[in-house]
């Protein structure tokens, strides 16, 4: 299991063992990054896979250890007959289903936008903007107040253009992912991606990011946001679970496009639990996964990890920190997690962001060509 889930999952496991005394859950937590997929892949290849394990849906998010890649290779059990399998949100099904069969439990969902320090916003009389020009104005106001507007982890800054692209790419071309898969379009040849990168460049020019943002690591950017030096953090809303500071409340809001009506948000069910096919304890493993899917367990577990549960996404009843996203879920203004987006693509988009921050407007096309090359390979 990913170590970031430890605080949320440990109490759940304790409760499960009380409810099912015949089953003992021996959990191994592994840090995120490449350690987790490497460990999992080695265990699967060595015939020593855990009975239940965490992975990412689709084919590429966790490389060869992604849920559907494993399903294709017969490594994970078919969970279609479980009562919760019908609840997998429509928007996420393509990442969990193969040939009409469900292979994983969506553990939690995240969205895209900016995480902000609600406490400081209230003190300064600021409100989340509803237009892109409002975002730029907000940056100028915060900067004039001597604070850093947005902490951007430049070494891993892909989520910023991705958030912007939800509106600039997918509103006009909802089937952009299919077009990309069919090699009918490219990043560099898509006006929406050019717009998203231009907006990153505009934000940079408006002084939105901290000095030295290009080389900033995730932990450095996190530190700026947690310490109150930066009032916003550019990353997935899942970071809300980890971003904590005494006496401070954090929330999240979507990055608005030109206007509210054309704004879309990502609905990414990127966390999945799977059961190893043919595991010696398959029945017990499925019982544990069923327990995680239970209504009293799934929502607190997802919320503690900074995510939203399947039930919350389906009903648009989001946790308080994410109420700004509720109307988008209600009005179906959500975009699925891009099917082409894996660890390698996140790196190449982050590289493109660094290029844009260093080179300005002129480098946008070459930066996007770099993403195209990475995807082709």
């Amino acid at each position, binding site marked *: 299991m990913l170590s970031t889930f430890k605080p949320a999952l440990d109490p759940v496991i304790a409760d499960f063992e009380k409810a099912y005394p015949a089953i003992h859950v021996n959990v191994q937590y592994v840090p995120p990054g490449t350690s987790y997929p490497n460990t999992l892949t080695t265990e699967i290849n060595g015939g020593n896979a855990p009975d239940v394990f965490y992975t990412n849906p689709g084919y590429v998010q966790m490389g060869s250890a992604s849920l559907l890649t494993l399903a294709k290779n017969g490594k994970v059990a078919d969970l279609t007959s479980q009562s919760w399998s019908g609840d997998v949100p429509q928007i996420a099904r393509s990442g969990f289903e193969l040939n009409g069969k469900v292979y994983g439990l969506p553990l939690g969902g995240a969205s895209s936008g900016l995480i902000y320090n609600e406490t400081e916003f209230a003190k300064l009389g600021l409100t989340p903007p509803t237009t892109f020009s409002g975002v730029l104005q907000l940056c100028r106001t915060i900067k004039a107040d001597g604070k850093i507007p947005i902490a951007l982890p430049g070494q891993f800054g892909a989520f910023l253009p991705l958030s912007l692209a939800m509106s600039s790419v997918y509103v006009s071309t909802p089937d952009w992912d299919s077009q990309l898969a069919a090699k009918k379009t490219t990043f560099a040849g898509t006006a929406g991606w050019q717009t998203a990168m231009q907006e990153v460049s505009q934000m940079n020019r408006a002084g939105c990011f901290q000095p030295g943002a290009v080389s900033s690591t995730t932990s450095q950017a996190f530190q700026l946001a947690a310490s109150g030096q930066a009032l916003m953090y550019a990353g997935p809303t899942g970071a809300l679970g980890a971003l904590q500071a005494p006496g401070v409340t954090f929330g999240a809001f979507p990055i608005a496009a030109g206007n509210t009506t054309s704004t879309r948000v990502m609905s990414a069910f990127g966390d999945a639990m799977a059961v190893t096919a043919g595991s010696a304890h398959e029945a017990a493993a499925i019982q544990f996964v069923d327990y995680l899917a239970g209504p009293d367990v799934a929502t607190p577990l997802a919320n503690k990890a900074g995510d939203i549960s399947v039930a919350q996404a389906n009903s648009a009843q989001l946790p308080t920190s994410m109420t700004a996203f509720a109307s988008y879920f209600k009005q179906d203004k959500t975009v699925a997690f891009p099917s082409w987006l894996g660890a390698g693509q996140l*790196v190449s988009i982050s590289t493109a962001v660094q290029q844009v921050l260093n080179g300005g407007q002129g480098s946008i096309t070459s930066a996007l060509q770099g993403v195209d090359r990475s995807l082709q390979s």
Partner: protein
Amino acid sequence: MSTAKPPPGTDAREETTAAAAGARPGPAQPAGPGRRPLKGDRAKSPVPLWWALPGVAFVAAFIYLAFFADAWYSFTNWTGTGPAQWVGLSNFRGILTDPIARGALWHTVELTVAFVIAANLIGLGLALALHRTVRSRNVLRVLFFAPVVLSPLAVSYIWQFIFSYTGPLNGLLGSVGLGSWKRDWLGDPSWALWTVLVVLIWGFTGLSMTLYLAGLQGIAEEIDEAAAVDGASTWFRLRRLTIPLLAPSVTISVTLTTISGLRVFDQVIGLTGGGPADATETLATQLYQQGFANGRAGYGAALGVMLTALIAVVAVAQVLVLRRREARL
């Protein structure tokens, strides 16, 4: 110094070779056939050769078998799980045509050349400075050697903080009136690679210094003194006596720095992660990125084969050339 001083009548150059190669200091063995064990001696050895079998089997299983398995996978499209399909030379062609991989190769070469020159010059300079004259030389030797024993990855994270825009380096520049020199050292593509180089040199120079010190201690003091009495200047003695007698140390240090430069990984991952915009990608970081993060195990294996071949060719060529030069000297 005095421990490795050869007794009168012994070839000082041979003694230097032994000292630089890490031989135990002590009275020199007489030259001649008695120095090496003969076949007959080996046969009478109380330690049977088969005792080495567990070690040989271990090395064969975990080094050679792994290498040949990696070489086989380099001709496949293996993703890390599932079946591997034979794709011939496609991975190698991909590496040669991919601008990021080509850039990584170029950065590796740039970094290695600069690193070998700088680490050896600084290491030699430190060794000469701390060989005899400085009273606190033992303390200074320990201080300069200390970075060698520290984890390169952990140390790189500390350097990451030092070089960050709001870090101590820029703070220092600002406080001494050099505010215009402040920059995002790791975020500026034209500076990032050289920043990695600084950390690499800092981490390795101590070892280079130790290798040269070992060589210097094998050189008889009398030779230098005799040349000084004959009126040779310090520069002349350094150029014509000390450096030629240090040839074995040069061979070892240059070879080790070359290998360390070619396989540089920890410092890049800890400082820049290969960025900004691939400006510090090296062959080793690309191998990791492609093979593990991108799930292209076959392609990563091909990068591994290329990196191994590059290190082997360069290191062997270097040793051959330098050994030949040693023989001439």
